[in-house]
C-alpha cells in the first residue's frame, strides 16, 4: 500500500492521471502552494502541482534560466522541455518567489523554440505578499478573475455549489492528513518519515476520492499495527520546497525518524481547513492567503516561528533540520533566524544548503546529518 504512494510520487504521469485523461478529463498544473486547488477541482479538472523529480540534468533549463537560479524550477523546466508534462491541459503560475515565477517566462519561451510543449491554457494568478484587509479583498477578486478565466476558456460553469463540494473533498483530505499527523505524534511512530512524505506528496497527483479512500485505509491499518519506530531521535524538517522521500530516507538512515515538517509540500498544505459555510470564494481566498505561513509573506516571521515551535511541541521532536535549496534566499535567511531562536529555546538545529531532489549531493548531506545525530545521542 505504501509502495503505491511511493510510486505515485515518483512517476509524473502516474496511472491515476492516465485513467483520468483516458476518461476525457483535464489536468491543470500549478507551480506554488498558494494556488487554490479547489477552484480547479470544482471545474471538474484535476489540479496537479508540478515537480522536478526524475530530472537528471538541467541542460534545457540552463538554456533559458540564468546560472543563479534555484534548481527546483530548473528541474521542472527540464522535464517540461523533455515533453514530460505534455499531459497537462493548462498551467497556473503564481509569483511564489522570483525563481519559480520566471518558470512561466522560460517555459513559454522553451515551448516557442520547440522544447516540449506548453499547455493550451495559462493563467497567472497574483498573490499579495502581505496579509491585510485590502490584500484579502484583492485576492478574493483575483480568485474570481481566475474562476472567470477558467470557465471561459474551458466553457464550464463554476458555481458556488461546485466550489463547496470541492472544499469539502479537500478538507476531508486535510482532516485525514491531520489524523496521520496524530499518529506520527505518538511515541511509537507507526510510519517512517520517508513513507509519510510519499503519502503527503501523492495528494498533489491524485483524484480526491481515490486519495481519500486510500488514505483512510492506510490510517486504519497504521492504527492497528502495533509496531513502531520507538526510541529513535525525532526530527522535523523545515525550509525550502521539498518533495523527495528519498532525502527523508537518507536522513532517517542515520538512525532517526522524521515525525513532521513545516514545508509547503507538507504540513502547511493541510493543517488549516477552509471554512465550509459562507461565501466559498472568500473562504478559499482566506485560507490560501492568510493561512499559509510562507517566508514570501514578509514581516510575519514571528508567526512562522510560532508555527515551528508548535510543531516541535506536538511532534515531541528532539531537533530540527532547516534546509534550503541553493539560491533560495528567503528560506536561507529565515532558516538562520529560526536557528537562532530555536536554539535559544534549547532545540538543536542543523542548517543545510543543498540542491533540489535529483540534484542533491547525498554524501555531503549524509555526513552532516550523521554528525548531528551523533551529538543528539551523546
Amino acid at each position, binding site marked *: 500500500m505504501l509502495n503505491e504512494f511511493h510510486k505515485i510520487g515518483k512517476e509524473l504521469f502516474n496511472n491515476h492521471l492516465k485513467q483520468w485523461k483516458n476518461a476525457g478529463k483535464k489536468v491543470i498544473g500549478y507551480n506554488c502552494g498558494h494556488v487554490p486547488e479547489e477552484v480547479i477541482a470544482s471545474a471538474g479538472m484535476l489540479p496537479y502541482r508540478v515537480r522536478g523529480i526524475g530530472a537528471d540534468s*538541467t541542460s534545457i533549463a*540552463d*538554456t533559458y534560466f540564468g*546560472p543563479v537560479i534555484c534548481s527546483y524550477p530548473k528541474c521542472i523546466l527540464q522535464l517540461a522541455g523533455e515533453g514530460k508534462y505534455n499531459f497537462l491541459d493548462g498551467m497556473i503560475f503564481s509569483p511564489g518567489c522570483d525563481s519559480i515565477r520566471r518558470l512561466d517566462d522560460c517555459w513559454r519561451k522553451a515551448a516557442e523554440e520547440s522544447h516540449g510543449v506548453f499547455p493550451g491554457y495559462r493563467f497567472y494568478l497574483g498573490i499579495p505578499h502581505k496579509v491585510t484587509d485590502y490584500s484579502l479583498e484583492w485576492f478574493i477578486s483575483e480568485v474570481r478573475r481566475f474562476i472567470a478565466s477558467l470557465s471561459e476558456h474551458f466553457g464550464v460553469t463554476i458555481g458556488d455549489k461546485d466550489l463547496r463540494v470541492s472544499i469539502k473533498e479537500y478538507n476531508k483530505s486535510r482532516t485525514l492528513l491531520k489524523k496521520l499527523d496524530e499518529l506520527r505524534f505518538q511515541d511509537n511512530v507507526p510510519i517512517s518519515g520517508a513513507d509519510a512524505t510519499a503519502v503527503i506528496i501523492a495528494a498533489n497527483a491524485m483524484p480526491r476520492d481515490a486519495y481519500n479512500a486510500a488514505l483512510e485505509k492506510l490510517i486504519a491499518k497504521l492504527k492497528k499495527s502495533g509496531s513502531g519506530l520507538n526510541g529513535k531521535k525525532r526530527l522535523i524538517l523545515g525550509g525550502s520546497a521539498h518533495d523527495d522521500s528519498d532525502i527523508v530516507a537518507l536522513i532517517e538512515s542515520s538512525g532517526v525518524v522524521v515525525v513532521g515538517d513545516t514545508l509547503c509540500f507538507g504540513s502547511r498544505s493541510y493543517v488549516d481547513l477552509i471554512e465550509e459555510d459562507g461565501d466559498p470564494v472568500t473562504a478559499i481566498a482566506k485560507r490560501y492567503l492568510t493561512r499559509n505561513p510562507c517566508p514570501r509573506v514578509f514581516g510575519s516571521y514571528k508567526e512562522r516561528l510560532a508555527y515551528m515551535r508548535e510543531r516541535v511541541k506536538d511532534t515531541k521532536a528532539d531537533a530540527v533540520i532547516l534546509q534550503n535549496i541553493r539560491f533560495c534566499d528567503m528560506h536561507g535567511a529565515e532558516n538562520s533566524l529560526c536557528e537562532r531562536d530555536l536554539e535559544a529555546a534549547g532545540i538543536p538545529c542543523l542548517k543545510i544548503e543543498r540542491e533540489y531532489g*535529483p540534484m542533491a*549531493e547525498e554524501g555531503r548531506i549524509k555526513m552532516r546529518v550523521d554528525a548531528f545525530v551523533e551529538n543528539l545521542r551523546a
Partner: protein
Amino acid sequence: MIVAGCDIGSLTAKAVIMNEDGIVSQAVMRAGARPEESAQKIMETALEMAGLKMQALAYVMGTGYGRRQISFVQDVVSEIVCHGQAMHWLNPSIRMVIDVGGQDAKAIRVDEKGGVLQYVYNDKCASGTGRFLEVMAEALEVALENLGPLALESQDPISISNQCAVFAETEVVSLLNGGKAKPDIAGGLVRALAHRIAALAKSIGLETPIAMSGGVAKNQGVYAALEKVLGVQFNRPEGDPQINGALGAALLARAKLQRLNAEKG
C-alpha cells in the same frame, strides 16, 4: 610568405606556421604559468619542426587568453574569430562551431565566410569545460586520452548531478566507492558535459553543419554524447581540432599580410 598563429590558452599553448599553400608545421604543449614563456617555447618548437628561424616569419597573429603577453606578434585577435576562420578553411559549409577548451566553452554561429554572427560563453558557475574532464579523469584514475574511449564502453551512464567540478569529484569518488563501473561513471561525466554544451549551442540557436574544435574535440565520448543530446551529426574535419585557434590566427595573419602587400604595391 611565411606566417604564424600562436594561441596561448588557459591550459595549452599552440602554434601553427603556414605558407601560401597551407600548414607548414604545428605544435601543442602544456602552457606554463607565464604566458610569455609558453609563447616563446611553443613558437620555437613549431619553427624547429619547420626548420625555420623566427626572422622568417613575416607576420604573427596572437590569440587566446594569454595573447596580450606574447612579445613577438604583430597583432592579436580573439580566439572566437580564429575558430570561425579555421573552420571555414577546413570546411566552408560549417555554420556552427562548438569550441571547448580547458577553461571555457563557446558556441559560435558563423556565416558563409567564416565571420562570426553570434557567440556565447558558458555560464560562469558551471563546468562545461575541459578542465572538468581532467579533474574527473584524475579522480577515475584513467589517462585523459582514455576517458573518451572508456565512456563509449558504457551501456548505462550514471547521472552525475553536480555541476561544480570540485563537488562532482567527490561524487565520482563516492560512486567509485559504491562499486559503480568506471565506464558508466565516465559515460555519465561525458554526458553531463555534453548536456552543458548542448544548452550553450541551443541558446543561440542550433545550426548545421556543425563542428567542434578545441582540445575536448579529441574526446570521442563527448562527440557521441553531444550527437545524442543534440540529435545532429557532427562534421569532423581532418586534423587536430586543438590547433584550430592557432590555425585561425595563422590564416588571419596570412590574409592581413596579403592585404598589406597589396596596399604597398
